[in-house]
């Protein structure tokens, strides 16, 4: 009996380890939880990309929107761009933040591939990106009409990721 208990210890240990490693299989270690979920979008006032003058936080509020962090140097941004165009045509409000990019290239990009953004502002030094906790592009923040960040998606927005959770996040925004 005692022997049985003794022998089962490695077995139990093995199972615990197995469960622990198994649930890690589906996780993406690159994906970090955002520290800003549930918090208001930080204040900012930055230059517009296509229009003259600056854009600030208050101008964006009033209706739920996606804040998409993008750049022309980012290959995944090219990948998701067409899908963003589609979402915009379905009436989703998307605001762009051009992140540490060359402005001429960024403008050319929008005129070539289409412009899904209601408005675009420029964070060329990456300062506001730090306030947002951005650690790569693309990142998409889901922001409600009061300016509270409800969700942050790291990586490409496409048909699959939209159907697998992003749409329901968007629909929950008020």
């Amino acid at each position, binding site marked *: 009996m005692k022997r049985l208990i003794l022998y089962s210890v490695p077995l139990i240990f093995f199972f615990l380890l197995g469960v622990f490693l198994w649930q890690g299989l589906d996780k993406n*270690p*690159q994906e*970090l*939880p*955002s*520290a*800003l979920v549930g918090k208001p979008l930080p204040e900012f006032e930055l230059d517009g990309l296509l229009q003259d003058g600056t854009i600030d936080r208050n101008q964006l509020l009033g209706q739920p929107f996606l804040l998409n962090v993008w750049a022309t140097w980012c290959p995944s941004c090219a990948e998701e761009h067409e899908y963003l165009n589609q979402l915009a045509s379905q009436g989703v409000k998307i605001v762009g933040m051009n992140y*540490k990019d060359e402005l001429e290239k960024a403008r050319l990009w929008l005129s070539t591939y289409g412009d899904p953004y209601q408005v675009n502002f420029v964070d060329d*030094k*990456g*300062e506001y*990106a*730090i*306030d*947002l*906790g951005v*650690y*790569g592009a693309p990142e998409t923040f889901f922001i409600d009409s009061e300016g509270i960040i409800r969700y942050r998606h790291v990586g490409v927005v496409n048909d699959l990721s939209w159907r697998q959770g992003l749409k329901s996040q968007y629909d929950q925004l008020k």
Partner: protein
Amino acid sequence: MNYLRRCLFLTLLLCLYTQALFAVIEVYEFEEEQQHQQYERLIDELRCPKCQNQNIADSNAPLAKDLRQKVHEQILDGKSHEEIVQYMVDRYGDFVTYRPPLRPVTYLLWFGPFVGVFLVLGILVWRTRRMARVAQQALTQEEEAALAHLLSQNSTKDPIE
């Protein structure tokens, strides 16, 4: 010969000194030496969110560079170590520090290793005590006889069969 040996020793010693090779390129000016030390300590302790397992001192990712700049700026502004760490945690979460705060979710992280060591030590002590107790017990006459019998049987046998 002695000279050669010394050279070899120095070369080996240099191999151990790898830190500087990974050090970052840009140079920041500080007003006081104490600020410089604070900077070194912070960039050593803050983790680069973009890279999976590097601090912002070792990483050459653009984001790590931006964060080093932010740290420098704030040190010049007179911010304390804790204030700067808090600034980063507010934006990037606990991931950003290699010294995670003590709270219920991190108990396992902080205390797990100690619990493990004490558990193993406890088992070790318990086992050695038991062994000592068994060793102290004298054999009965019957057991002595059985032991002598076994030993004599064994010695008559060819050790290599």
